[in-house]
């Protein structure tokens, strides 16, 4: 077994000094990303998010208030003919509204991701679902990305195994870019074994550079975007 100390000492030796016990990280007063998304209003950020995601064939359903979420989600599910759904149970108000909505849908089978249900059964349900519903913590305007924090009732596979990934997102939670979300990670990642940034459907260009969609993950992504930033 290679020994950690020996491994690190070899590096120190090659670098011609002992292993430092403290390092002064360079500090910068400005960043190359400072100018990006500067001066945009929240409405403009939300619009940019929509444009970016749509350009990647992501779908955006705008909803004016949380109260209208049930109707919008049910209609979408009906129109698309979804039969099997797997969903997060998210502690937020939107998460609760989502659960109530799904509970009222008839002829549709919903499995909630849960820390008490059996793992194998959950995986099988996600595998067979045609829609997986999650609640995003943030949206990134620059790239049309949604940010998902996974743990407990917020399983990782819900956004991955079903053929379509459905995301609930508040307009007020859309931030300019990666920068703002990364700045929180130091405090947040210890609580979540997995954080996902998702931008559009699963895609590949491995066969003669021809774009194919849904190679491993969902081939569709739909974001139910609540315009709460306007009120």
């Amino acid at each position: 077994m290679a020994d950690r100390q020996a491994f690190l000492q070899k590096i120190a030796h090659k670098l011609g000094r002992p292993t430092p016990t403290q390092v002064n990280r360079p500090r910068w007063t400005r960043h190359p990303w400072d100018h990006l998304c500067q001066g945009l209003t929240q409405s403009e950020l939300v619009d940019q998010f929509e444009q970016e995601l749509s350009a990647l064939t992501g779908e955006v359903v705008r909803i004016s208030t949380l109260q209208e979420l049930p109707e919008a989600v049910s209609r979408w599910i009906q129109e698309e003919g979804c039969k099997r759904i797997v969903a997060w149970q998210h502690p937020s108000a939107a998460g609760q509204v989502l659960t109530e909505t799904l509970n009222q849908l008839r002829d549709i089978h919903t499995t909630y991701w849960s820390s008490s249900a059996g793992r194998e059964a959950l995986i099988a349900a996600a595998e067979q679902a045609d829609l997986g519903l999650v609640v995003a913590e943030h949206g990134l305007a620059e790239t049309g990305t949604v940010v998902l924090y996974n743990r407990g009732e917020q399983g990782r596979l819900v956004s991955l195994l079903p053929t379509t990934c459905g995301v609930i997102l508040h307009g007020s939670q859309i931030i300019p870019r990666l920068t703002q979300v990364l700045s929180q990670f130091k405090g947040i990642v210890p609580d979540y074994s997995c954080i996902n940034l998702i931008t559009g459907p699963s895609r590949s260009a491995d066969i003669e550079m021809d774009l194919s969609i849904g190679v491993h993950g969902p081939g569709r992504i739909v974001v139910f975007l609540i315009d709460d930033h306007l009120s």
Partner: protein
Amino acid sequence: MSLSNPLPFKQRVEQGLNDPFLRQSLKNAQARFREGKQRAAQILGNLEEWRTRAEAIRHHTIEHLDYYLDQFATNVENNGGTVFFAETEQEAVDYLIRLAKAKQAKTVIKSKSMVSEETHVNKRLEEIGVEAIESDLGEYIIQLAKEMPSHIIAPAIHKNRRQIAQLFAEVAGKELPEDTSALTRFARHQLRDKFLNADIGISGCNFAVAETGSIVLVSNEGNARLTTTLPKTHVVMMGMERIVPTWEDLDAVLSLLPRSATGQKITSYVTALTGPRRENDQDGPEEMHVIIVDNGRSNALGTEYQSILHCIRCGACLNVCPVYRHIGGHAYGGVYTGPVGAVLTPILEGFDEWEELPYASSLCGACTETCPVKIPLHDMLIDLRRDEVDEKRSPGVERFIFRLFGTAMNNPALYRLGLKMAKHLLKPFADDEGFLNKGPGPLKAWTEERDFPAPAKESFREWWQRAGRYGGDPDGR
């Protein structure tokens, strides 16, 4: 001769040169990736500032690599993961084999990992009866073809649709239509099954964040997510240089990686993994093992080649390289292809099998110009050549150069390149006064008798282009 390098260099080059499909598809791919990259750069508006920052971060990290690795490893352990430091390929694979045996693993699913390619993991697993399946579509294709990746970003770029359909047909036991969506559907179906049943998932690591002990993976297909979520054991194989100190530092390199690679602003999936699954989690692995691999990387530390460890594996240097375009990835013989491979492989493995690689470049400098972390690739290629000359390894190589020269004479674009090359190529042979007194190849006979002037810094053609017909006249009459 190593496993990854079955044919001599010249034959590999010839194979590449004689494959018209390969040359055409590389040309198209290069053009597409390059355009994407340029557009992405335009949108950023201040690419130079990004490059400068990314270079500074990479430089600082590698200068303090032992410190950050220590910090990273401690944090991984605090999060419930296990860390193993592997000095050699052997140690890395032995650890994995021990683990596979302990878990009584039958199948292993892998998402694209250059390090596992570098350490010949699949073959070693096969030897103990464990099936290893590549899940990245491109990697899956070349695994079926029993070949190596030929591009960092697009590993199966050398395969055409018909070849892929044939490979899949063998697995399916029946004919498959030659269209992309049918082939993709087949692969998805095939691999889903493997994912659901695999005992171990092996991933690479795009970036490891020292301050929290997290692993960051980027992928477009989502196969990295499946690999790290479904199997009960997750093994990360990472080159020891893959560290960034903080999440803020990640911003610079993570923003540059997809933009430099394909021109995307971000890949479909960016996943941050911090330890194995927690008590209340139903998915995610029960165990996370991180194997940190040196395998020759420390050869670069403290030398003029140290900054090759800054590489973020974006493949941008491949996409601008005229030599890569003509000969393709397999000609490089190693896991890492193109300009980065020509520098990295001899450093990782020594000159013995790879002495020709530093010559697989036109020294046009396009690689250096495009590299998002400003690695001076073509300067390193010159330095490697000088080192080879110092080691008196040149004769075989010289013959090769002159053969290339012969090919170049038949192709005007290459000829112009060749003229540019000559001054660099001959530089190592010139003495202080700029005279060649031990010229290579055909020049040898001449220089045995007298000195030969080294080519001027600027060729006539270059001067003509710069100064024009009325050379030197400021009014340009």
